[in-house]
């Protein structure tokens, strides 16, 4: 029986068996659900297809954001003249924005780990796969890696904005993506641990403060930042940069920060940018049905 509670369990198992963390998680799921590994694999492929479609659908012009409180920016960003970022990173950002905008408009997405953070994994993995010429099987395996990391975060901390703020949603997504990216780039299991730790501690403390309660502002742009952060953490870990604090302890700390976070800053829209003068004005307009 393959089982794990922590990231270090996963690293240890991958070391012992000389395999990827993704393979451990794949086997775990088959055992815990009592289904064949093939069935589990096919299920993940289905989820990946929804992720890919959400990028494509999210870049189409056929939808608007609810209440039209703001315009869409993914396409605009994709086609803008580059000033600082290279084409690769620009595409990552545009894709994360696209999926997130599509999600806001009640489009079909794959929660990863939540819908509010659903732009991070498709954008990072799709772009990384193009860059590395990775095959579908490599991406699917990386999704298993990501989901193993997410499972530890969900059980040791939280993946709900209402429990622990945005650090538990976009933060968890960025940590999952960072770990998946390094493993996609053929890292060691220990580098996965460092990538997760670096990503999660760099976004720790982020509150959940949706303007008027809508998953639009600041959620959409935070997905883009989560995606960029994942690449930065992955690049660091691949370069041999180590986290002083192990990932498991960072995860526990994130959960504790979530518990300490005031309820006004946990998805209730009673703090942060939701209660700025502009945020309040938008809320009033929506409740009056002015949009």
């Amino acid at each position, binding site marked *: 029986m393959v089982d794990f*509670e922590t990231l270090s369990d996963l690293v240890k198992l991958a070391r012992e068996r000389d395999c990827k963390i993704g393979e451990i*998680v794949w086997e*775990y*799921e088959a055992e*815990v*659900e009592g289904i064949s590994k093939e069935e589990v694999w096919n*299920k*993940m492929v*289905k*989820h990946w297809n*929804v992720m890919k479609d959400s990028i494509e659908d999210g870049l189409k012009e056929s939808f608007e954001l*609810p209440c039209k409180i703001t315009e869409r920016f993914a396409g605009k960003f994709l086609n803008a003249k580059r000033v600082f970022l290279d084409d690769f990173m620009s595409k990552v950002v545009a894709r994360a924005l696209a999926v997130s905008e*599509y*999600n*806001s*408009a*009640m*489009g*079909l*997405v*794959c*929660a*990863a*780990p*939540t*819908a*509010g953070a*659903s732009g991070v*994994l498709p954008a990072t993995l799709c772009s990384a796969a193009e860059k590395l010429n990775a095959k579908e099987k490599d991406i699917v395996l990386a*999704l*298993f890696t*990501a*989901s*193993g990391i*997410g*499972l530890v975060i*969900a*059980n040791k901390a*939280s*993946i*709900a*904005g*209402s*429990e622990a703020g945005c650090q*538990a949603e976009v933060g968890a997504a960025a940590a*999952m993506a960072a770990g998946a990216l390094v493993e996609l780039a053929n890292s060691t299991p220990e580098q996965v641990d460092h990538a997760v730790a670096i990503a999660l501690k760099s976004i720790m403390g982020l509150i959940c403060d*949706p303007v*008027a*309660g*809508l*998953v*639009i502002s600041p959620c959409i742009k935070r997905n883009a930042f989560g995606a960029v952060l994942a690449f930065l953490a992955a690049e660091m870990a691949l370069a041999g940069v180590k986290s002083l604090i192990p990932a498991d302890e960072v995860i526990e700390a994130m959960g504790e920060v979530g518990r300490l976070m005031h*309820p006004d800053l*946990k*998805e*209730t*829209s*009673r703090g942060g940018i939701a209660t700025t003068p502009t945020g309040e004005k938008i809320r009033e307009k*929506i*409740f009056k049905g002015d949009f």
Partner: protein
Amino acid sequence: MKKVESIFEIIGPIMVGPSSSHTAGAVRIGKIAREILGTKPVKAIILFHGSFAETFRGHGSDKAVVGGILGFSTDDLRIRKALEVAEREGLKIEFKTVDLGEEYHPNTIKIILEDASGLKIQVIGSSIGGGNIIITEINGFETDLSGDYYALIAIHDDKPGMVAKITTILAKHRINIAKMRVSRIKRGALAFSSIEVDHEISKEVVGEIEKIKEVRLVRALKPI
């Protein structure tokens, strides 16, 4: 024991946006309420508590919970038009906000459903993140259903031997029990059994359990 066991609760669900807790979770709570009613609802009172009360309009929780009550799944694009569909199908809906108290999860919904014959059920469910839910109360009885497994629920007289009568029927049909819970509001009145099982429970099994004279209501639930 892990709070979350399957990785497809992390990567997934595949769902209509924008919020796994406020949209997908709300769909699932609505869908379970519909299954517990077991018939076509004509009236629904939906009460939002906590964070749900603050933000249900923005996250489409209103459309989501109604979509669930209509029987839609989390990935059904008809959720976007659920309020219009409900109107067409003659389902009268009332939305309210409520403060159930601090012991309830911030994302909690109370649903009261009624069918044309006057049968009324009341469900309280919380959306605990990532589309995962927990049903904490059915018709006033405490429970902890996740909606992830096949389950049998029954309201019956609070008498000795009731659980044995029900589980004997399950055993006869070779249905394995994964988890079971019995609760009651006061001694000697009515009790509530919820039994999570490994296999689908057929209409035949439900029919046999319905025949037990102390059983007032029985429903077989599917994973939602």
